[in-house]
């Protein structure tokens, strides 16, 4: 890695700081969206006045807003995301316990999506307007429009209930029993991948078509390179930048889409955690999950930015 690249990486790291600070604002601000008195809403309609006061004190809602924020931030910096209103347990523990289950299916889905979509996208772009292209684009538009969790339901109905090849629900720990964990993750990952495949295929196709009809590809043809060499060497390297961006986007979307998938497969992940806590108005947990997920996405984007600066010589220009 050149010194320039390192400098770019350092610069990117610096740029992440304000985004994280803003993210803490946003996560903290979630509670401000609650109409009326948050404490009363959290306590529920049947709560006594004492319970409301108790909650208000527990959440520090009687303090001025900036103090509340600093208090929350102070905790977050030390890895303390407050405690659950329902269980009374530290939020961070619960989130970290469930996170591996979610990340496992997301990463599996992503790998699956990339390994299917990349060949499809290349195939479509090299046969523009042909039968192959039309077939691939139709599949892709289907994938964008189909609800993930419905695909999950169909998969469960067919492969789990009818054929019994996969378990219908639940998850296993990757560290304790990797094979069983993957076995459990297979169907959810396939269901999750459907929209990722579609998105990556579409974007890769259009990016590759653009590259292949660019002026510099004409130059490459003019100097007598073979079509294969143009595609595999120049086409893919140029398109890899778009691919990276799309993968980042798909990662973000997949992380969101797991929520419904986790419900379908009864996976104890962060998605189901956020749903139950939002339903039960357990706001510290909601804030905790959102904050951790935002951090993960920010880190993922950072990684992509760094890869970008390694791959694209133009990025090092400053």
């Amino acid at each position, binding site marked *: 890695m050149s010194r320039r690249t390192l400098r770019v990486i350092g610069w990117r790291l610096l740029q992440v700081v304000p985004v994280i600070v803003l993210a803490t604002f946003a996560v903290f601000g979630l509670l401000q969206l609650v109409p009326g008195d948050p404490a009363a809403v959290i306590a529920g309609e049947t709560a006594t006045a004492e319970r409301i006061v108790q909650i208000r004190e527990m959440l520090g809602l009687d303090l001025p807003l900036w103090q509340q924020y600093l208090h929350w931030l102070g905790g977050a910096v030390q890895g303390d995301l407050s405690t659950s209103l329902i269980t009374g347990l530290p939020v961070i523990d619960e989130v970290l316990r469930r996170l591996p289950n979610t990340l496992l299916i997301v990463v599996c889905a992503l790998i699956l999506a990339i390994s299917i979509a990349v060949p499809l996208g290349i195939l479509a772009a090299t046969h523009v307007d042909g039968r192959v292209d039309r077939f691939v684009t139709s599949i892709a538009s289907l994938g964008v429009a189909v609800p993930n969790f419905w695909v999950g339901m169909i998969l469960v109905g067919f492969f789990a209930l009818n054929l019994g090849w996969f378990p219908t629900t639940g998850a296993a720990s990757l560290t304790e029993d990797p094979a069983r964990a993957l076995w459990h993750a297979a169907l959810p990952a396939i269901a999750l991948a459907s929209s990722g495949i579609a998105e990556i295929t579409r974007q890769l196709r259009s990016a590759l078509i653009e590259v292949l009809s660019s002026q*510099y590809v004409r130059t490459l043809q003019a100097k007598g390179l073979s079509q294969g060499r143009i595609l595999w060497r120049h086409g893919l390297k140029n398109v890899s930048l778009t691919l990276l961006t799309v993968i980042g986007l798909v990662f973000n979307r997949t992380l969101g889409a797991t929520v419904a998938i986790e419900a379908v497969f009864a996976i104890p992940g962060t998605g189901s955690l956020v749903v139950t806590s939002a339903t039960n108005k357990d706001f510290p947990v909601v804030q905790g999950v959102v904050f951790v997920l935002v951090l993960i996405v920010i880190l993922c984007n950072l990684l992509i930015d760094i890869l970008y600066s390694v791959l694209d*010589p133009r990025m090092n220009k400053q």
Partner: protein
Amino acid sequence: MVDATSTAPGAALLDVRDLGIAFRTGAGMVQVTRDVTFAIQPGEVVGLVGESGCGKTVTGLALMGLLPKATSRIAGEVLLEGENLIGMSARRLQQRRGAKISMIFQEPMSALDPVFTIGEQIAETLRAHRHVSAREARERGIEALARVGIPEPALRYDAYPHQLSGGMRQRAMIAIAIVCEPRLLIADEPTTALDVTVQAQIVDVLGDLCSRLGMAMLFITHDLGLVAQTCSRLVTMYAGEVIEEGCIDDVLVRPRHPYTSGLLRSLPALAERKSKLPAIPGRVPMRGEMPEGCRFRPRCGFARPPCEAPQPLDRLTSAGQVRCCRHDELELMGVLS
């Protein structure tokens, strides 16, 4: 820069005969050029001139076999050293491109792959056509960069296109095109995107390369001044047809086609200062609505009834061609009024 009298018949390097190009569009086939006929002798520099949309760039691309096969139809013959490039298999054509016939383009920024170094792009050309080691490719690449006047070629060899200025990029583009020492270079408006002073440098480099490598060049441009400066012969196109061809000094002084004459006379640099410029009335016909017969007829001050018939490309005694039935009787004005 090249001897102007090299029009002797014999083995022409490039012989273009009745080249016609049509594109498939939403509204059916559209004929873009027809009856494009001219020849280039070895080592000769020929200018191909015309206004935008006259089909000069498309002709250049057709000579290289670079028009998309799915959407274009090409008729006629393009003989490069006696071999017809039209209808040649993709593989054989690929072997000719870059080795025997090369092309450079108008926008040096978009014509270079942004994510590969200049050196990689030169070496790639070389290794596609010659069996050279990586090390030898580098040496010859650096040599090519030096040849096109890039200072510190060994350093620039590892630079990316965005790190070079416009003029340097065009030089690098030329280096890529000439590294295999082709017999013919097609230069499509190579200096249009550049400043005059840089243009002068690039034109200089091109002329120098032609004489040193014995390379012929087809210089496609809209700038008659540039043609006068660089070429020995001039081919003028109008509305998809070759309308005049001849030795540059003859055409400038005594054009045989009213359009060429009109073009030359409308140049502000050569008119009296603050005088009314003799402009050509009307505009180039649209592709769908070409007039019957002579295509320049609606704009021509000399049009007569015979002009309504299709005009053949007549050979001239002075080793040129013209597509005008009145070329014998008309005394047309050139740059010296």
